């Protein structure tokens, strides 16, 4: 990556030390709550970042209603 990148906090695995990370909202306050994205990580700089395509939170959200 080069520049600024936004990553969902449940999907970020690792990033190179040259990159700075900030925690922020994906859009406005209302937008972040309603969009289901919640908090995101804002990464800026140059280097490699590693993502996972599935998050634990997503699996939990699917399973929770199935528990009696």
């Amino acid at each position, binding site marked *: 990556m080069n520049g600024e990148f*936004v990553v*969902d906090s449940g*999907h970020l695995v690792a990033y190179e030390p040259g990159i700075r990370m900030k925690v922020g909202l994906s859009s406005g306050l209302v*937008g972040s709550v309603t*969009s289901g994205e919640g908090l995101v990580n804002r990464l800026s700089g140059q280097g490699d970042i590693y*993502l996972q*395509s*599935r998050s634990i939170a997503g699996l939990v959200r*699917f399973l929770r209603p199935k*528990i009696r």
Partner: protein
Amino acid sequence: MQVEVLHQPDSSIAKIDLDPQEELIAEAGSMVAMSGFLNVSTTLRQGKGGGVFGGLKRMLAGESLFLSVFRSGTAPGELYLAPKLIGDILPYQLSADRSGGLVVQSTGYLASTPGVDIELGFQGIKSIFSGESIFWLNVTGQGLVLLSSFGGIYEIDVDGEYVVDTGHIVAFEKSLSFSIAKANKSWIGALMGGEGLVCRFRGKGRLFCQTHNPGAFGRTIGSQLPAR
């Protein structure tokens, strides 16, 4: 706009390259990562099924109430989307002249381009007995839809009659008609055989099936987890 699906089939993730001034609508919460300057907004509106009522109908269908809209400004942007369960992603191109649209199982929607209308469809009383969701999404218009599945997706060209277990359907073209039937001739056989009810498709068109059944997975795992 260019869509590339990576890490298929079990961990698939869609990498979408947006050209300047392009827009993509996606299920809320499906964003994994994106370029920092992409504009994100939340909407209830989606073609004919717009407004608060449309959003509530979408909730009934097992979809999220809100949809996220990703807009690229003056510069091209990059966006990654993934469904929450282990499974595949299928890009499907809708054109006005071909087969008049797609019927999607309610959790199978991931994203679409602005020209696509998503509407909650009620497939009649028969689908209540299918053991799966009552509601299906009617996808019409022109553009690209990204479908998500649980497990791998495979495509079947139906010409005539075809039978699929109700939990394994992702989507089918509207040129196909379907009815719910029991897998076995006798009711006892249908219940004991574990197959339960099946969908019987008729006509000519494409049908997309998934290798796993989310309902069955949820029941297997859910019953073994401690109570809340």
